[in-house]
C-alpha cells in the first residue's frame, strides 16, 4: 500500500512539472511586451521599472528564470503579484477557505442528490421517477452553472427575498452558489450511479442476498451500492476539474471572494504571476484529489490490490 502511494505520488511529479512548464511558457514567452510595463502602466518611472525588473529577475536569461520558477514553485513560492506586490501564495491561501467551502459544499450536494437520484432510478428503471430524474440530469448537464445561478438569484433572492443575492458570510450566502455549482456534478453522478447500479443489480450475488431473505434496503445499500460506487467515485474525481472551473463562474456570479474570482480579476489586471500561480495551484489540487480517488478504490473494494 505504501509503495503504491509513493509510486503514484512519484508519477504525479512529472505531470506537475509539465503543468508548471506550460503555465511558465504561457505567461512569460507568449505574452507580448514587457511584463513590468504591463503591470505598471505606460507612464511609470523608468528607474522604478528597472529596479522591479532586477528585483524580479526579469533581466536574467529565460532558462534561468524557468529554473528558478520551477525550484520556487516546488517550495511553495509562486512569486510576487504585479498589482499587490504580495506573495502569490499568500493571496491564494487567504482566498482558499472561501473556495474550499464552496467547492466541498457543492460536491456534497452533488453526491447526495446524484447518488439518491441514481439509486431511485436504478431500483425502478423506466418508472416515473426514473424519467424525472434522468431528464433532470440531462438538463443539468446542459445548463450553464452561472445561468442556473442567475435563475436562482432571481427566484430566491429577488422575487421571494429568502436568501442574499451574493456575498460571503453566513451559511445563507452559501446555499445558492453551492446548489448552482453542484447541479452539473449531481447530474453526472446521478447518471453514473444509475448505470452502474443497473449493472450490479442483476448480478448473482444480489439475487443470493435477496434469496437469503435480506431486507431490500440492505441489499441495495450494502450489497449493490457499495459495489456500484467505484465508477461513481471515478466520475467524482474527473468532475472535480470541471467543478474547479465552475467555481470561477459561480464566484463571479455570486460575488464570492474565492480564488476563482481573484484569478479573473488578475486576468483583467494582466497580473501574470497571480494567474499563473492560481492555475498551477488549482491544477495541483486537482491532481492530488485524483490521487486520493485512486487510493480510495482499495478501501471500497478490498479485491483491488496495490502491488
Amino acid at each position, binding site marked *: 500500500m505504501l509503495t503504491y502511494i509513493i509510486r503514484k505520488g512519484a508519477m504525479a511529479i512529472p505531470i506537475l512539472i509539465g503543468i508548471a512548464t506550460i503555465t511558465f511558457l504561457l505567461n512569460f514567452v507568449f505574452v507580448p511586451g514587457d511584463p513590468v510595463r504591463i503591470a505598471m502602466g505606460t507612464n511609470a518611472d523608468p528607474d522604478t521599472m528597472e529596479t522591479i525588473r532586477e528585483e524580479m529577475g526579469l533581466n536574467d536569461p529565460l532558462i534561468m528564470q524557468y529554473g528558478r520558477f520551477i525550484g520556487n514553485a516546488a517550495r511553495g513560492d509562486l512569486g510576487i503579484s504585479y498589482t499587490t506586490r504580495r506573495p502569490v501564495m499568500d493571496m491564494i491561501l487567504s482566498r482558499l477557505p472561501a473556495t474550499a467551502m464552496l467547492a466541498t459544499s457543492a460536491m456534497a450536494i452533488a453526491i447526495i442528490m446524484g447518488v439518491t437520484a441514481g439509486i431511485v432510478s436504478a431500483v425502478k428503471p423506466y418508472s416515473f421517477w426514473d424519467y424525472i430524474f434522468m431528464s433532470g440530469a440531462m438538463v443539468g448537464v446542459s445548463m450553464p452553472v452561472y445561468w442556473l445561478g442567475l435563475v436562482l438569484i432571481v427566484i430566491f433572492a429577488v422575487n421571494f427575498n429568502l436568501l442574499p443575492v451574493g456575498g460571503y458570510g453566513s451559511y445563507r450566502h452559501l446555499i445558492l452558489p453551492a446548489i448552482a455549482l453542484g447541479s452539473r456534478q449531481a447530474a453526472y453522478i446521478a447518471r453514473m450511479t444509475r448505470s452502474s447500479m443497473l449493472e450490479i443489480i442483476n448480478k448473482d450475488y444480489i439475487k443470493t442476498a435477496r434469496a437469503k431473505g435480506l431486507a431490500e434496503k440492505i441489499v441495495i445499500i450494502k450489497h449493490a451500492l457499495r459495489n456500484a460506487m467505484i465508477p461513481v467515485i471515478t466520475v467524482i474525481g474527473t468532475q472535480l476539474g*470541471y467543478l474547479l472551473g465552475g467555481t470561477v463562474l459561480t464566484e463571479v456570479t455570486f460575488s464570492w471572494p474565492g480564488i476563482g474570482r481573484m484569478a479573473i480579476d488578475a486576468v483583467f489586471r494582466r497580473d501574470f504571476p497571480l494567474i499563473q500561480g492560481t492555475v498551477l495551484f488549482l491544477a495541483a489540487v486537482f491532481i492530488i484529489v485524483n490521487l486520493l480517488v485512486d487510493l480510495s478504490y482499495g478501501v471500497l473494494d478490498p479485491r483491488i490490490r496495490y502491488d
Partner: protein
Amino acid sequence: MNVEPEVRQESIETEEVEKYSQWKDAWRRLRKNKMAMIGLGITLVVIFVAIFAPLLAPHDPYYSPVMEDGQAELSMQGPSLSYPLGTDRLGRDILSRIIYGTRISLIVGVITQLIALAIGITLGSVAGYYGGIVDDVISYFINVFLAFPFLLFAIAIMAVFQDPGIEQVFLALGLVTWPGLARIVRGEVMSLKEEEYIEAARSLGAKDFRIMTKHVIPNCLAPIIVTVTLGVAGAILAEAGLSFLGIGAQPPMPSWGLMLNAGRDYLRSDPRMMWFPGLAIMITVLGLNLFGDGLRDVLDPKMRD
C-alpha cells in the same frame, strides 16, 4: 443517407459493404432512440436558424437605435409585436441577437472541434501507431494537458491575449480539448494496428501514411464522431462561460454568454434580459448532448458511462 448506388458499384470489395452496413445499421438503431431523435431535431433547428438568421431575424442585431439615432425610448423595452423579446439597453432587438447568436455558438463549436481534431487525430494516431518512445512523449503531453482543470486552462490561455475576442476563443478551446480526442484515437489505433487487414495492407507494401489514413482512422471514426458531437456542446458552453466572464467574445457581438453578462446588471429590474440567452444556450447544448448520447449508445457501446 441514400448511398445505394455506390454500394452496388463496389459490392466486390467486402470492406466497403461492411462499412456501409455498419453505418446503415447504426442509423436504423439511432432512429428508434426517441431521445436521440429529439436531440437531432433540436440540433437541425439550431443549424437552420443559424444559416437563415438574416431571413428570420426581424431586426439588425447590431443596430442600436439608442446610440445611432438617439431614440432613447427604445432602451429596455418590454416584449411587443415589433420586438417579441423586448430590447436591451442600447435598444437592440433581443430576439434578433439571440438568432444571430446561434451562428457564433455553432461556429465556435465547429472550429474548436476542427482544431482539436487536427491536433488530436495526428498526435493520437502517431502515438498509437508507432508506440515506444514516440508514444511515451505524446502520452506525457496528453496527460499534462488533461491534468489542467478545463475552464481554468482556457482562462489561462485567454489571459495571454491583449485584446481577447472570438478568434482567440477558438484557439484556446481547441488547445484545451485536443487531449481527450488524442487519447481516444491513440487507444483505438493501438488496438486496430494488430488487426489482420492492417498487416495485409502492410505486406502489400502500403506506406504508414496510407495505412493510417485509409485503414486505421476510418475504422475509429465511431468514437471520434461521438466525442466531437459532445465536444461541440462542451465548446459552446465554454465559449458562453468565457464571454460571460468578459474574456471571450467582446461587445457588440451577439454572443449568448455576453448577453448574460449584460443581463446580470438587471436581475432586479429586468430579469427578462437573462432568461432568453440562457435558454438558448441550454436548448442548443441539450440537443447536442441528447444526440451525442444516442450516437454513443449506437456506435460505441464500450464508451457508455
